[in-house]
Protein backbone atom coordinates (compact mmCIF):
# COMPACT_ATOMS: atom_id res chain seq x y z
CA UNK A 1 0.00 0.00 0.00
CA UNK A 2 1.43 3.39 -0.96
CA UNK A 3 1.97 6.03 1.68
CA UNK A 4 -0.48 8.27 -0.20
CA UNK A 5 -3.13 5.57 0.13
CA UNK A 6 -2.43 5.19 3.85
CA UNK A 7 -2.63 8.93 4.42
CA UNK A 8 -5.85 9.35 2.47
CA UNK A 9 -7.39 6.36 4.23
CA UNK A 10 -6.48 7.95 7.56
CA UNK A 11 -8.05 11.23 6.47
CA UNK A 12 -4.74 13.07 6.59
CA UNK A 13 -4.18 16.24 4.63
CA UNK A 14 -1.95 15.51 1.62
CA UNK A 15 0.22 17.67 -0.59
CA UNK A 16 0.82 16.50 -4.14
CA UNK A 17 2.76 18.34 -6.80
CA UNK A 18 3.36 18.18 -10.48
CA UNK A 19 6.82 16.88 -11.33
CA UNK A 20 8.20 19.22 -14.00
CA UNK A 21 8.65 17.47 -17.34
CA UNK A 22 11.95 15.72 -17.94
CA UNK A 23 13.66 15.75 -21.32
CA UNK A 24 17.41 15.46 -20.99
CA UNK A 25 19.63 15.18 -17.96
CA UNK A 26 18.60 11.79 -16.60
CA UNK A 27 18.32 11.05 -12.90
CA UNK A 28 20.42 14.07 -11.98
CA UNK A 29 17.78 16.29 -13.54
CA UNK A 30 15.05 14.61 -11.49
CA UNK A 31 17.10 15.30 -8.36
CA UNK A 32 17.59 18.95 -9.33
CA UNK A 33 13.86 19.43 -9.92
CA UNK A 34 12.87 17.75 -6.65
CA UNK A 35 15.33 19.52 -4.41
CA UNK A 36 13.50 22.81 -3.70
CA UNK A 37 10.07 21.28 -2.98
CA UNK A 38 10.60 17.67 -1.97
CA UNK A 39 10.36 18.33 1.77
CA UNK A 40 6.75 19.50 1.53
CA UNK A 41 5.28 17.01 -0.91
CA UNK A 42 3.71 13.60 -0.21
CA UNK A 43 3.63 12.43 -3.83
CA UNK A 44 4.62 13.78 -7.22
CA UNK A 45 2.60 13.49 -10.42
CA UNK A 46 4.68 12.13 -13.29
CA UNK A 47 2.88 13.69 -16.24
CA UNK A 48 1.96 11.89 -19.44
CA UNK A 49 2.87 14.13 -22.38
CA UNK A 50 1.16 17.16 -20.84
CA UNK A 51 -0.59 19.55 -23.24
CA UNK A 52 0.12 16.94 -25.94
CA UNK A 53 3.86 17.67 -25.99
CA UNK A 54 6.18 14.64 -25.97
CA UNK A 55 8.51 14.27 -22.97
CA UNK A 56 10.14 11.48 -20.99
CA UNK A 57 7.36 8.95 -20.31
CA UNK A 58 5.28 9.00 -17.13
CA UNK A 59 6.33 5.43 -16.31
CA UNK A 60 10.04 6.23 -16.70
CA UNK A 61 9.75 9.39 -14.59
CA UNK A 62 7.77 7.43 -11.97
CA UNK A 63 10.63 4.94 -11.74
CA UNK A 64 13.10 7.81 -11.49
CA UNK A 65 11.06 9.29 -8.63
CA UNK A 66 11.04 5.94 -6.82
CA UNK A 67 14.82 5.75 -7.21
CA UNK A 68 15.08 9.27 -5.81
CA UNK A 69 13.17 8.08 -2.75
CA UNK A 70 9.91 9.94 -3.34
CA UNK A 71 6.47 8.63 -4.12
CA UNK A 72 5.14 8.93 -7.67
CA UNK A 73 1.60 9.30 -8.99
CA UNK A 74 1.74 8.02 -12.55
CA UNK A 75 -0.57 9.91 -14.85
CA UNK A 76 -2.12 7.95 -17.69
CA UNK A 77 -3.83 9.76 -20.54
CA UNK A 78 -6.08 8.11 -23.11
CA UNK A 79 -4.81 10.25 -25.97
CA UNK A 80 -1.68 8.34 -26.98
CA UNK A 81 -2.31 4.66 -26.28
CA UNK A 82 -4.90 2.03 -27.01
CA UNK A 83 -6.22 -0.31 -24.34
CA UNK A 84 -3.47 -2.88 -24.81
CA UNK A 85 -0.74 -0.29 -24.24
CA UNK A 86 -2.60 1.16 -21.24
CA UNK A 87 -2.88 -2.30 -19.66
CA UNK A 88 0.80 -2.94 -20.31
CA UNK A 89 1.80 0.35 -18.65
CA UNK A 90 -0.43 -0.29 -15.64
CA UNK A 91 0.87 -3.81 -15.09
CA UNK A 92 4.42 -2.58 -15.76
CA UNK A 93 4.00 0.19 -13.20
CA UNK A 94 2.69 -2.28 -10.62
CA UNK A 95 5.68 -4.53 -11.25
CA UNK A 96 7.95 -1.73 -10.08
CA UNK A 97 5.79 -0.74 -7.12
CA UNK A 98 4.21 2.31 -8.74
CA UNK A 99 0.72 2.07 -7.25
CA UNK A 100 -0.67 5.62 -7.41
CA UNK A 101 -2.32 6.15 -10.78
CA UNK A 102 -4.09 9.25 -12.07
CA UNK A 103 -6.33 8.47 -15.06
CA UNK A 104 -7.35 11.18 -17.50
CA UNK A 105 -8.71 11.71 -20.98
CA UNK A 106 -5.85 13.99 -21.98
CA UNK A 107 -5.65 17.21 -23.96
CA UNK A 108 -6.21 16.73 -27.65
CA UNK A 109 -3.23 16.42 -30.00
CA UNK A 110 -4.21 19.79 -31.48
CA UNK A 111 -3.18 21.44 -28.20
CA UNK A 112 0.40 20.28 -28.69
CA UNK A 113 3.34 20.87 -30.96
CA UNK A 114 2.68 17.80 -33.11
CA UNK A 115 -0.96 18.41 -34.07
CA UNK A 116 -0.55 16.13 -37.09
CA UNK A 117 -0.39 13.09 -34.78
CA UNK A 118 -3.17 10.49 -34.71
CA UNK A 119 -5.31 10.83 -31.62
CA UNK A 120 -6.17 7.49 -30.02
CA UNK A 121 -8.83 7.76 -27.26
CA UNK A 122 -9.53 4.03 -27.54
CA UNK A 123 -10.81 4.33 -23.97
CA UNK A 124 -12.11 7.36 -22.11
CA UNK A 125 -11.12 8.27 -18.56
CA UNK A 126 -13.98 6.44 -16.74
CA UNK A 127 -13.24 3.36 -18.83
CA UNK A 128 -9.54 3.60 -18.03
CA UNK A 129 -10.37 3.82 -14.32
CA UNK A 130 -12.60 0.76 -14.66
CA UNK A 131 -9.82 -1.02 -16.54
CA UNK A 132 -7.36 -0.35 -13.70
CA UNK A 133 -10.00 -1.70 -11.34
CA UNK A 134 -10.36 -4.83 -13.48
CA UNK A 135 -6.59 -5.38 -13.31
CA UNK A 136 -6.80 -5.02 -9.53
CA UNK A 137 -9.43 -7.72 -9.63
CA UNK A 138 -6.84 -10.00 -11.20
CA UNK A 139 -7.92 -9.86 -14.84
CA UNK A 140 -6.91 -8.18 -18.04
CA UNK A 141 -9.80 -6.72 -20.00
CA UNK A 142 -9.95 -9.98 -21.95
CA UNK A 143 -10.54 -11.88 -18.73
CA UNK A 144 -7.08 -13.47 -18.79
CA UNK A 145 -5.93 -13.86 -15.16
CA UNK A 146 -3.07 -11.95 -13.50
CA UNK A 147 -1.73 -13.82 -10.48
CA UNK A 148 -1.17 -12.27 -8.05
CA UNK A 149 -3.30 -9.28 -8.93
CA UNK A 150 -1.60 -5.87 -8.88
CA UNK A 151 -2.64 -3.26 -6.36
CA UNK A 152 -3.32 0.37 -7.23
CA UNK A 153 -4.55 3.56 -5.66
CA UNK A 154 -6.64 4.68 -8.60
CA UNK A 155 -7.13 8.38 -9.10
CA UNK A 156 -8.92 10.60 -11.55
CA UNK A 157 -9.16 14.25 -12.52
CA UNK A 158 -12.05 16.63 -12.99
CA UNK A 159 -12.36 20.22 -14.11
CA UNK A 160 -14.65 22.34 -11.92
CA UNK A 161 -14.04 25.27 -14.28
CA UNK A 162 -15.36 23.75 -17.51
CA UNK A 163 -18.99 23.52 -18.65
CA UNK A 164 -21.37 21.92 -17.95
CA UNK A 165 -20.57 23.14 -14.44
CA UNK A 166 -23.62 21.56 -12.83
CA UNK A 167 -22.69 18.14 -14.28
CA UNK A 168 -19.06 18.02 -13.15
CA UNK A 169 -19.71 16.49 -9.74
CA UNK A 170 -21.88 13.80 -11.35
CA UNK A 171 -18.99 12.99 -13.64
CA UNK A 172 -16.73 12.75 -10.59
CA UNK A 173 -19.30 10.41 -9.04
CA UNK A 174 -19.17 8.28 -12.18
CA UNK A 175 -15.40 8.05 -11.78
CA UNK A 176 -15.87 7.01 -8.16
CA UNK A 177 -18.32 4.37 -9.34
CA UNK A 178 -15.76 3.15 -11.86
CA UNK A 179 -13.18 2.75 -9.09
CA UNK A 180 -11.38 6.07 -8.51
CA UNK A 181 -10.45 6.88 -4.92
CA UNK A 182 -8.89 10.29 -5.29
CA UNK A 183 -9.65 13.19 -7.57
CA UNK A 184 -7.16 15.86 -8.56
CA UNK A 185 -8.90 18.97 -9.87
CA UNK A 186 -7.80 21.07 -12.81
CA UNK A 187 -6.31 24.46 -12.00
CA UNK A 188 -9.23 26.83 -11.48
CA UNK A 189 -8.89 30.60 -11.59
CA UNK A 190 -12.59 31.12 -10.90
CA UNK A 191 -12.96 30.52 -7.18
CA UNK A 192 -16.76 30.66 -7.38
CA UNK A 193 -16.72 27.59 -9.63
CA UNK A 194 -14.40 25.63 -7.33
CA UNK A 195 -16.61 26.64 -4.41
CA UNK A 196 -19.70 25.43 -6.22
CA UNK A 197 -18.03 22.12 -7.12
CA UNK A 198 -16.78 21.46 -3.59
CA UNK A 199 -20.10 22.29 -1.97
CA UNK A 200 -22.05 20.02 -4.32
CA UNK A 201 -19.42 17.26 -3.90
CA UNK A 202 -19.68 17.61 -0.14
CA UNK A 203 -23.46 17.80 -0.01
CA UNK A 204 -23.90 14.76 -2.28
CA UNK A 205 -21.30 12.68 -0.45
CA UNK A 206 -18.97 12.51 -3.45
CA UNK A 207 -16.06 13.95 -1.47
CA UNK A 208 -16.57 11.06 0.97
CA UNK A 209 -16.26 8.53 -1.84
CA UNK A 210 -13.06 9.97 -3.27
CA UNK A 211 -10.49 12.34 -1.82
CA UNK A 212 -10.82 15.67 -3.64
CA UNK A 213 -7.60 17.63 -4.17
CA UNK A 214 -7.84 21.10 -5.79
CA UNK A 215 -4.87 22.35 -7.82
CA UNK A 216 -3.00 25.59 -7.33
CA UNK A 217 -0.70 26.88 -10.05
CA UNK A 218 2.24 29.13 -9.26
CA UNK A 219 3.19 31.23 -12.26
CA UNK A 220 6.01 33.78 -12.43
CA UNK A 221 5.63 36.00 -15.44
CA UNK A 222 3.11 37.93 -17.52
CA UNK A 223 3.96 35.64 -20.44
CA UNK A 224 3.28 32.56 -18.34
CA UNK A 225 -0.08 33.92 -17.23
CA UNK A 226 -1.03 34.79 -20.81
CA UNK A 227 0.03 31.33 -21.98
CA UNK A 228 -2.13 29.55 -19.40
CA UNK A 229 -5.04 31.89 -20.15
CA UNK A 230 -4.94 31.36 -23.90
CA UNK A 231 -3.22 28.07 -24.70
CA UNK A 232 -4.00 25.50 -22.01
CA UNK A 233 -7.29 23.72 -22.73
CA UNK A 234 -9.88 23.87 -19.98
CA UNK A 235 -8.39 26.71 -17.94
CA UNK A 236 -10.52 29.83 -17.89
CA UNK A 237 -8.58 32.79 -16.53
CA UNK A 238 -10.72 35.90 -15.96
CA UNK A 239 -9.29 38.94 -17.80
CA UNK A 240 -9.01 40.87 -14.52
CA UNK A 241 -6.52 38.29 -13.19
CA UNK A 242 -4.38 38.60 -16.33
CA UNK A 243 -4.63 42.39 -16.06
CA UNK A 244 -3.62 42.27 -12.41
CA UNK A 245 -0.35 40.55 -13.33
CA UNK A 246 0.20 42.78 -16.36
CA UNK A 247 -0.11 45.96 -14.32
CA UNK A 248 1.88 44.73 -11.32
CA UNK A 249 5.26 46.24 -10.58
CA UNK A 250 6.58 42.78 -9.81
CA UNK A 251 4.80 40.11 -11.86
CA UNK A 252 6.33 37.22 -9.95
CA UNK A 253 5.15 38.55 -6.59
CA UNK A 254 1.70 39.23 -7.98
CA UNK A 255 1.47 35.68 -9.39
CA UNK A 256 2.47 34.36 -5.99
CA UNK A 257 -0.19 36.47 -4.27
CA UNK A 258 -2.84 35.14 -6.66
CA UNK A 259 -1.73 31.55 -5.94
CA UNK A 260 -1.85 32.26 -2.22
CA UNK A 261 -5.34 33.75 -2.41
CA UNK A 262 -6.67 30.84 -4.47
CA UNK A 263 -5.03 28.30 -2.13
CA UNK A 264 -6.48 29.98 0.95
CA UNK A 265 -9.89 29.95 -0.68
CA UNK A 266 -9.53 26.27 -1.68
CA UNK A 267 -8.52 25.28 1.86
CA UNK A 268 -11.68 26.90 3.21
CA UNK A 269 -13.96 24.67 1.10
CA UNK A 270 -15.70 21.62 2.59
CA UNK A 271 -14.38 18.17 1.71
CA UNK A 272 -10.89 19.23 0.61
CA UNK A 273 -8.49 16.33 1.22
CA UNK A 274 -5.32 18.13 0.23
CA UNK A 275 -3.77 20.45 -2.32
CA UNK A 276 -1.98 19.81 -5.60
CA UNK A 277 0.66 22.34 -6.62
CA UNK A 278 1.90 23.09 -10.08
CA UNK A 279 4.93 25.26 -10.71
CA UNK A 280 6.21 25.09 -14.24
CA UNK A 281 9.80 25.86 -13.40
CA UNK A 282 12.32 24.54 -10.98
CA UNK A 283 12.07 26.99 -8.13
CA UNK A 284 11.20 27.18 -4.48
CA UNK A 285 7.69 28.52 -5.11
CA UNK A 286 5.89 25.45 -3.79
CA UNK A 287 7.88 25.35 -0.56
CA UNK A 288 7.39 29.09 -0.12
CA UNK A 289 3.65 28.82 -0.68
CA UNK A 290 3.32 25.90 1.76
CA UNK A 291 5.16 27.94 4.42
CA UNK A 292 2.93 30.94 3.82
CA UNK A 293 -0.17 28.75 4.06
CA UNK A 294 1.11 27.22 7.28
CA UNK A 295 1.36 23.72 5.80
CA UNK A 296 4.24 22.02 7.61
CA UNK A 297 6.85 19.91 5.79
CA UNK A 298 5.89 16.27 5.10
CA UNK A 299 7.91 14.72 7.94
CA UNK A 300 6.45 17.14 10.45
CA UNK A 301 2.92 16.40 9.26
CA UNK A 302 3.62 12.67 9.46
CA UNK A 303 4.97 12.99 12.99
CA UNK A 304 2.67 15.58 14.53
CA UNK A 305 -0.36 15.36 12.29
CA UNK A 306 -1.90 18.38 10.64
CA UNK A 307 -5.37 19.58 9.92
CA UNK A 308 -5.76 22.21 7.25
CA UNK A 309 -9.16 23.29 8.43
CA UNK A 310 -9.43 27.01 8.06
CA UNK A 311 -11.76 29.01 10.25
CA UNK A 312 -14.90 29.75 8.26
Amino acid sequence: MSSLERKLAAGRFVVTAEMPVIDGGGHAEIGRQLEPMEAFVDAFNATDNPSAHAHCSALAVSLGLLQAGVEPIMQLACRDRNRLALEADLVGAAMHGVENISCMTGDDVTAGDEPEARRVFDLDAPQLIALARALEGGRYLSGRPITPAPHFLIGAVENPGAPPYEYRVRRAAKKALAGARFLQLQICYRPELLERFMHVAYDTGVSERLAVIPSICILRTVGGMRFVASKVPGIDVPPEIVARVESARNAEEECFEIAYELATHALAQPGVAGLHFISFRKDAGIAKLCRRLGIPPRVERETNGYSASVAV
Partner: protein
Amino acid sequence: MRTGGLVARAEHVVKGAIWDCQMCGQCVLHETGLTCPMNCPKTLRNGPCGGVRPDGTCEVKPDMRCVWLKAYERSERLPLWRGHIDRVRAPVDNRLAGTSSWINLVTGRDREVPAGWAARADVEP
Protein backbone atom coordinates in the same frame (compact mmCIF):
# COMPACT_ATOMS: atom_id res chain seq x y z
CA MET B 1 -26.31 -7.79 -50.56
CA ARG B 2 -26.71 -9.47 -47.18
CA THR B 3 -29.65 -8.47 -45.00
CA GLY B 4 -27.25 -7.02 -42.43
CA GLY B 5 -25.78 -4.74 -45.03
CA LEU B 6 -29.18 -3.55 -46.17
CA VAL B 7 -30.35 -2.87 -42.64
CA ALA B 8 -27.12 -1.04 -41.85
CA ARG B 9 -27.62 1.17 -44.90
CA ALA B 10 -31.19 1.90 -43.92
CA GLU B 11 -30.10 2.65 -40.37
CA HIS B 12 -27.41 4.99 -41.62
CA VAL B 13 -29.88 6.87 -43.80
CA VAL B 14 -32.34 7.36 -40.93
CA LYS B 15 -30.04 7.90 -37.97
CA GLY B 16 -27.41 9.74 -39.95
CA ALA B 17 -29.97 12.32 -41.02
CA ILE B 18 -31.45 12.78 -37.56
CA TRP B 19 -28.54 12.32 -35.16
CA ASP B 20 -25.46 12.44 -37.40
CA CYS B 21 -25.01 8.77 -36.44
CA GLN B 22 -21.47 7.50 -36.98
CA MET B 23 -22.49 3.81 -37.16
CA CYS B 24 -20.45 2.51 -34.23
CA GLY B 25 -22.81 -0.47 -34.19
CA GLN B 26 -23.50 -0.26 -30.45
CA CYS B 27 -25.95 2.56 -30.09
CA VAL B 28 -26.20 4.40 -26.77
CA LEU B 29 -28.31 7.35 -28.00
CA HIS B 30 -30.97 6.71 -25.37
CA GLU B 31 -28.35 7.09 -22.61
CA THR B 32 -26.85 10.27 -24.04
CA GLY B 33 -29.89 12.47 -24.50
CA LEU B 34 -30.25 11.25 -28.11
CA THR B 35 -26.88 12.83 -28.95
CA CYS B 36 -24.36 10.64 -30.76
CA PRO B 37 -21.16 10.58 -28.65
CA MET B 38 -19.14 9.38 -31.63
CA ASN B 39 -19.31 12.97 -32.92
CA CYS B 40 -17.08 14.00 -30.03
CA PRO B 41 -13.60 14.37 -31.61
CA LYS B 42 -12.25 12.23 -28.76
CA THR B 43 -15.13 9.74 -29.22
CA LEU B 44 -15.79 9.86 -25.48
CA ARG B 45 -18.62 7.61 -24.30
CA ASN B 46 -18.80 8.70 -20.66
CA GLY B 47 -19.18 12.45 -20.53
CA PRO B 48 -17.37 15.67 -21.41
CA CYS B 49 -13.61 16.03 -21.16
CA GLY B 50 -12.07 18.85 -19.16
CA GLY B 51 -11.31 20.91 -22.25
CA VAL B 52 -14.79 22.32 -22.89
CA ARG B 53 -14.42 26.06 -23.49
CA PRO B 54 -16.20 28.60 -21.27
CA ASP B 55 -18.66 29.36 -24.09
CA GLY B 56 -19.54 25.68 -24.34
CA THR B 57 -17.64 24.96 -27.53
CA CYS B 58 -15.34 22.01 -28.17
CA GLU B 59 -11.65 22.03 -27.23
CA VAL B 60 -10.76 20.43 -30.59
CA LYS B 61 -13.29 22.16 -32.86
CA PRO B 62 -13.91 25.68 -31.52
CA ASP B 63 -16.78 26.19 -33.97
CA MET B 64 -18.71 23.22 -32.63
CA ARG B 65 -20.78 23.11 -29.47
CA CYS B 66 -19.51 20.37 -27.13
CA VAL B 67 -21.31 17.13 -27.98
CA TRP B 68 -21.51 16.22 -24.31
CA LEU B 69 -22.92 19.59 -23.32
CA LYS B 70 -25.78 18.89 -25.70
CA ALA B 71 -26.03 15.31 -24.45
CA TYR B 72 -26.27 16.43 -20.85
CA GLU B 73 -28.85 19.15 -21.50
CA ARG B 74 -31.02 16.90 -23.63
CA SER B 75 -30.78 13.96 -21.24
CA GLU B 76 -32.14 16.20 -18.48
CA ARG B 77 -35.16 16.99 -20.66
CA LEU B 78 -35.92 13.44 -21.77
CA PRO B 79 -38.94 11.91 -20.05
CA LEU B 80 -37.34 8.47 -20.38
CA TRP B 81 -33.94 7.05 -19.44
CA ARG B 82 -33.42 9.66 -16.74
CA GLY B 83 -30.04 9.23 -15.09
CA HIS B 84 -28.75 6.73 -17.66
CA ILE B 85 -26.12 9.27 -18.66
CA ASP B 86 -24.42 8.50 -15.32
CA ARG B 87 -23.82 4.84 -16.22
CA VAL B 88 -20.30 3.69 -16.95
CA ARG B 89 -20.48 2.66 -20.59
CA ALA B 90 -18.14 -0.10 -21.77
CA PRO B 91 -15.31 0.52 -24.22
CA VAL B 92 -16.36 0.50 -27.86
CA ASP B 93 -16.05 -2.81 -29.68
CA ASN B 94 -14.23 -1.59 -32.76
CA ARG B 95 -15.23 -4.69 -34.71
CA LEU B 96 -18.82 -3.47 -34.81
CA ALA B 97 -18.05 -0.23 -36.68
CA GLY B 98 -20.29 0.04 -39.74
CA THR B 99 -22.67 -2.72 -38.66
CA SER B 100 -26.31 -2.18 -37.80
CA SER B 101 -26.92 -1.43 -34.13
CA TRP B 102 -30.58 -2.41 -34.71
CA ILE B 103 -29.51 -5.95 -35.55
CA ASN B 104 -26.90 -5.92 -32.77
CA LEU B 105 -29.64 -4.88 -30.35
CA VAL B 106 -31.93 -7.71 -31.41
CA THR B 107 -29.16 -10.31 -31.28
CA GLY B 108 -27.71 -8.92 -28.04
CA ARG B 109 -24.33 -8.50 -29.72
CA ASP B 110 -24.16 -4.83 -28.66
CA ARG B 111 -24.27 -5.86 -25.00
CA GLU B 112 -21.38 -8.30 -25.20
CA VAL B 113 -18.42 -6.92 -23.25
CA PRO B 114 -14.95 -8.38 -22.63
CA ALA B 115 -14.85 -10.91 -19.79
CA GLY B 116 -12.57 -8.72 -17.69
CA TRP B 117 -14.99 -5.82 -17.98
CA ALA B 118 -17.99 -7.95 -17.09
CA ALA B 119 -16.19 -9.46 -14.08
CA ARG B 120 -15.86 -6.16 -12.26
CA ALA B 121 -18.18 -6.22 -9.31
CA ASP B 122 -17.97 -2.52 -8.59
CA VAL B 123 -19.83 -1.13 -11.57
CA GLU B 124 -23.55 -1.21 -12.07
CA PRO B 125 -24.69 -2.97 -15.25
